[in-house]
């Protein structure tokens, strides 16, 4: 009985591990220049993205995963709005070099240039979403993969300093429209953050007021 139970547990663990592995395309992308050309073309024609997002944070210190949900908006050139609605309300608007944060108990506006951490985070996140992070070949060792549903790109930071923060960044692009469907940021020690973009709407009219600081 105990043997059966052990086998069952091992099987479940193996199935889950396999499931996790199969989510990552492993076939090398044959025509990288064609992919980059299509991505740049999509990026050039893209004016707005509106999407729901589900964010999972895995920390080795915790047995469960932290899950957050919310709405995401992007408007060309440099307007980003993240609105977290679960497990608590939190709004961050990035308007060029200005950052606005609204949370329980107050709101705050400041210059990204004055905060090194926000400055780097802003550049990194917007680069991932627009896909232009792939042009930063001097900063990352980039590898391209594909499967029937997605293009999959891994970026390993070249600098030791950046690698202390993130070991690897993985980006999934939809084959249909070349937009980002998932970002996974892996840290040393196995911690990671996964952001899934779902119900995406491209080039819809997102009013500028959405990015205003109120």
């Amino acid at each position, binding site marked *: 009985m105990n043997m059966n139970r052990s086998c069952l547990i091992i099987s479940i663990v193996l199935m889950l591990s396999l499931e996790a592995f199969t989510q990552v395309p492993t076939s090398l992308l044959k025509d990288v220049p064609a992919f980059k050309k299509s991505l740049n073309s999509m990026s050039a024609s893209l004016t707005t993205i509106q999407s729901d997002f589900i964010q999972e944070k895995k920390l080795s210190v915790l047995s469960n995963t932290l899950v957050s949900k919310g709405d995401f908006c992007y408007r060309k050139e440099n307007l980003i709005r993240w609105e977290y609605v679960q497990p*608590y309300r939190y709004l961050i608007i990035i308007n060029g070099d200005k950052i606005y944060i609204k949370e*329980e108990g107050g709101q705050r506006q400041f210059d990204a240039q004055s905060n*090194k*951490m926000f400055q780097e*985070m802003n550049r990194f996140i917007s680069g991932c979403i627009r896909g232009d992070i792939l042009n930063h070949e001097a900063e990352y060792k980039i590898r391209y993969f594909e499967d029937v549903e997605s293009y999959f790109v891994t970026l390993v930071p070249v600098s030791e300093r950046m690698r*202390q*923060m993130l070991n690897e960044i993985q980006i999934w692009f939809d084959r249909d429209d070349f937009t980002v469907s998932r970002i996974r940021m892996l840290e040393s020690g196995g911690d990671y953050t996964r952001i899934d973009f779902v119900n995406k709407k491209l080039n819809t009219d997102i009013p500028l007021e959405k990015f205003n600081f109120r």
Partner: protein
Amino acid sequence: MRNLILGSVLLFLTGGCSVALVDGYRQVPGNTGSQVSPVSWFSADTGHFLMAARIDVMKNYFTGLMVIKPLEGNSYRVVFITEVGLKIMDLEFNPGSAVKVLYMMDAMNRKSFLKILDRDFRLVLMTETGQDSPVVLLDQTSGDRILKYKQKGLRDYYYFQAGGNRPSWVRQMGSLGKKARAEFYGSEKTGIDSVKISHYHMKFRIGMFRVTGN
């Protein structure tokens, strides 16, 4: 002679602060009848505490999620991540020894910053209260108590309402007067709700609000 005058002034000032702090309270002879077994708000066996946190230090402002996990023997692991999942710091606090830095984002890795964080978190998590027996001060009228602990040239005054064993607030005093203060909001039944830490002589504030549902 000059040193004697300076010494007397300092003694008067520091002595004056102590008297003002515990006005109305009398030391319990031999610390008998204390009836307080101090318990940290974060020692409950719930696995971990998830807090929405903001740190306001000098010209910088950091916001995100703070995970506080009680470990064995009055030790704690504290992980601070941004809302978008990037890890800012991962620290371990153990009684009687220096903070163990498991990770600290480069932009924040300053010795002075870490020193203040170390003191603040020890104060709030109550890692040092098991080290020595405290001096017990009692308000005869209300039954409220103050427990005074000494550690590394600092004096920590934990205030307990009559019948309670979790502090309502704590004040840290140095040789030249008040240094920091933390206020705890919550109830014995539902646990901690929020914590506010502030410093008297510098702009360094930490606010944490409990997040449920994760």
